[in-house]
């Protein structure tokens, strides 16, 4: 009976840790995602100029980077959850 109770408690602790990890990933994602909105404010205006090329603006680089980062975050998440 005690073992069963301990097992349940351990499971609940594990679940709490899992949920924290999920919310952490979600939080990181939302912070990155919100950078798109910054492009339309004064603080994001500097991304309008080209970077690493003559024409590819920082804004375009940001969109590309976000797509790649989102996929990488998912891969990392799956790896950590194996």
């Amino acid at each position, binding site marked *: 009976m005690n073992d069963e109770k301990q097992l349940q408690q351990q499971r609940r602790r594990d679940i709490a840790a899992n949920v924290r990890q999920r919310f952490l990933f979600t939080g990181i994602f939302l912070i990155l995602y919100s950078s798109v909105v910054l492009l339309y404010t004064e603080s994001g205006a500097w991304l309008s100029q080209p970077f690493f090329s003559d024409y590819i603006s*920082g804004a375009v680089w940001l969109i590309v980077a976000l797509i790649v980062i989102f996929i990488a975050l998912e891969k990392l998440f799956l790896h950590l959850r194996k």
Partner: protein
Amino acid sequence: MIFNCKNFLAFIATLSLNLMMPSVSLAAGTIDGNIEQQPVNTTAIIMFAVFVISTLGISYWSSKKTQSSSDFYTAGGNISGLQNGTAIAGDFMSAASFLGISGLMFMFGFDGLIFAIGAMAGWPMLLFLLAKRIRNMGSYTFTDVVSLRLDRTKIRSVGIGGTITVVVMYLIAQMVGAGKLIQLLFGLPYETAVITVGILVIAYVTFGGMLATTWVQIIKAVLLLSGATIIAVLVLMETGFSFDAVLAGAVANHPKGEAILHPGVLYNDPIQVATVLVSMSFGILGLPHILMRLFTVANIQEAKRSVYVASTLIGYFYLALIIIGFGTIFFLYQQPQLFVDGKIIGGGNMVAIHLANVVGGDLLMGFMSAVAFATILAVVAGLTVSGAAAISHDLYAGIICKGEPDAATELRITRITTVVIGIIAIALGILFQNENVAFLAAMPMVVAASVNFPVLFLALFWSGTTTRGAISGAVVGLLASVILIVIGPQVWVSVLGNERALFPYNYPALFTMPVAFLVAYLVSKADRSERAAIDRQNYHDLIIRSEYGTEKALSVAKH
């Protein structure tokens, strides 16, 4: 085929915004006057005929494997993660994405990419937050998930209402857009196009269920990704594989010049951008036909893999669209024969097709036209399965039969419902032919974000959620969504003809979603009923299952 000057920009902006909906929302109602039919596109029709024949063959094969409701709703749970992920991507990457984002970028440059990133963004959150618990808690639909915890009858009613609302609104926008688009691409009469789409979908889904739908979506995804890749490569080949050169040419050609490379041509209000991003990303998390796909695989590992595969394919697609979008500017402005009175033939929706023609000739253009049609079929099929499941599984089996239906009767009802939904879709498409349905493309995403997602999230993650609180939040979310859309630009100005909108944003989920959450929270906190105690206890009783699943939950999907 020319859209008159007065509505051209409004058409591009509104239609293309709506075209970005994750499950293809084509809204053509902002076109003023009749669209003239294009000459019949024989190459496209032949290619499309090949697609239809092969997919009907698949539907026939699937019908032999679809012998139970479980087979119909979830393909027996035997789809692999890779297949399911590809199907999800096929369901999601619409003709609207391909044509609409390209059209937006052709007109406004960078700002069109807001919709690309918005459409991409729901998938990581689906994986991080919802996939596991939904898969472990449900069997066929997301309503199963919430009804496990809350009052089955009442919450199923909310779930059914949310599902049917989303499905019907999407279907109207889809069918109207399909009719208009097929007129443009194939030169077929509008009614013929709508009836053809409806009949094919009925054939696929009635006999083949989710299995046929899945394979139609997989084939379409492969075709669309291949086509997009070919176009992107051909665009880059013209400039020695220099994207910089593509942008240089685009800047030189576009009337707005360098402004197209950075934000501000279409949008300059960060709140406006935020409303779009929130509606799209959180809307995905509440779309019933997307969530349903989590149940078509054997276990949670495959479900998570599905989401990852879908996300990767969709991300790749939108990266290709960046090249295609700017490629349209680079190439099409060099083709004066494509313009009449300063406007591109066929309007913004045609730029990607024109580009396919310029870089790949008639063959590629015909191929992409056929793919666009196939895309519509795939998405309408997915919506139909979801709608049929809401009626036959959630309503008939869940509420009327209290969870113990006669299996054969349920399957029969499912098939009948599918036919009825198909007929309704055809009727709605013809009925709304000349109506301004642009707002109907915004509503599903906003409703999904403001009704379905809050209920789902709170039921899964907060022990304090009660049935009364969930229903209150859902009702308020729905009312807020409808009211703010009605008084917003799409309805108050475009449909009702007022001078100024009372609410300035087309996609109000940024406001309606938090309101729904707040109401659900407050009502749940104040709820002291007997049922509330049961609801709270259910969270604790089900927490282990929500994380670890059960053999029974798995076996239901595999049955």
